């Protein structure tokens, strides 16, 4: 285990050290102490390493991640995991707004609640939230899965494309062109796999699936008010 004290070493050198880890590095376990809510911790990683941040983080922790696993032992600031390509981010506390924005792949797990705009414009990432999510989540979501074990706020999935949403609790309101969908066998299997991968014990049968009604894909003058 390699330990970096962020307050002593500084952000630039910390991230440079993590970036220097090659595909076949022997130093696979890293611990960052004293994060003190700093921005951009463990951003742009591209190696199969595991980084544990002991405390709460600020903006964009784990952004643009590829391959790496980032554990946040605290709460995460805005834009955590933004544009992630692969790998995994696990947040023990709560996540602030726009978690996993535009992320293309990998998995983000939140043990607490996620705030507004969770998964906005998601492009293939899987996000599993054990608690609730805020308003305008998965706005313009294009691909990937958003799993919510608690409740969802206003305007879930507004203007979404082919992203899928599974919510166990209530949905305060659905966004434009987002609708409730039938939970078929393939979805139960998919959801079970996501819950297993996230390490969360829940029954897929308790969830409801939502997704695009596909009415806004092409311009229709009758829909002008909804655009």
């Amino acid at each position, binding site marked *: 285990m390699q330990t970096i004290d962020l307050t002593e070493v500084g952000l630039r050198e910390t991230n440079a050290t993590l970036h220097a880890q090659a595909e076949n590095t022997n130093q696979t376990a890293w611990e960052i102490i004293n994060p*003190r809510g700093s921005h951009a911790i463990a951003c742009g990683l591209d190696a199969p390493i595991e980084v544990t941040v002991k405390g709460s983080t*600020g903006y964009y922790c784990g952004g643009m991640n590829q391959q790496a696993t980032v554990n946040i032992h605290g709460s995460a*600031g805005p834009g955590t995991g933004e544009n992630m390509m692969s790998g995994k981010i696990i947040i023990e506390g*709560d996540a602030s707004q726009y978690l996993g924005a535009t992320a293309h792949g990998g998995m983000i797990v939140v043990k607490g609640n996620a705030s507004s705009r969770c998964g906005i414009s998601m492009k293939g990432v899987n996000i599993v939230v054990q608690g609730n999510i805020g308003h305008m989540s998965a706005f313009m979501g294009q691909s990937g899965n958003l799993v919510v074990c608690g409740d969802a706020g206003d305007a879930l999935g507004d203007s979404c494309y082919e992203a899928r949403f599974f919510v166990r609790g209530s949905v305060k309101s659905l966004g434009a062109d987002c609708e409730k969908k039938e939970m078929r066998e393939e979805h139960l299997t998919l959801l079970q796999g996501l819950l297993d991968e996230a390490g969360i014990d829940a029954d897929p049968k308790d969830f409801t699936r939502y997704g695009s009604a596909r009415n806004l894909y092409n311009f229709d003058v009758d829909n002008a008010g909804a655009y």
Partner: protein
Amino acid sequence: MCGIVGLFLKDPSLEPKLGAMLTDMLITMTDRGPDSAGIAIYPGETSGKTKLVVQSDAPDEDFPGLDTAIGKAVGGKVAMQVKSTHAVLEIPAGTTAAARSALADISSRLRVMSRGESLEIYKEVGLPKDVAARFDLSQMSGSHGIGHTRMATESAVTTMGAHPFNTGDDQCLVHNGSLSNHNSLRRKLRREGIHIETENDTEVGAAYLTWQMQNGATLGEALQSSLDDLDGFFTFVVGTKDGFGVVRDPIACKPAVMAETDQYVAFGSEYRALVDLPGIEDARVWEPEPATVYFWSHDAAPTTEKAA
């Protein structure tokens, strides 16, 4: 982008350290707003007196003899304490209007930063650490206070454009965001006779609250109706004589984090601003909900009002 901090003490033993704690929080928020900074602090009441904090860009010319001149105008004893570009005048209660008109006659450079029994506002252009040092903010004590670091987007970088804004006796406002209907609202409020000095959007927000309260609304009610009447982005933190309040617009894209322990309630635009507070590791930390008015007061239980 701007930075906001706020600290409301439940534990009186921390009061001597309020200025130091708030100053550290303010300086941490420098990169959210490096062009100006300000702080509103409630050091305690002065019985039978009102505090007027006035500012001048030429303090050496304007402040000497100002206490005597104001004293003559209001017909009473006036104490004055000069701190850099600001002077705190203690005038007899009920003479605020007379003092204000005397100030205008003495020099057009004199501007009123705040008025109230307890409230003192200090604000200037410059880096937060320099503004804090200029007024020796870290030495101040008090029961609660709010601060702001500004990155101007809507209007000029001037002292009058800096926050906090004084909205009424012992009331003040700081804002992160931008209001988009401030021009039409400014015209409307001016027609109603409300004095608005600058083209700044936040001043209109502050004037709106003043106008609502002049028409009988409580601060909580005024904040509630701001959700309907103000268009744009805002996280507001307001200070009152005995407490502070928080409200975010329904979209809530401007960040806000709160922390509460047995000793205090703290507000920060980011968690970074809170990391050095005592016992933060075990504090309840959360983001205030959109379109919800939160209030903490020394005189009453905390309240939360969700907009319909």
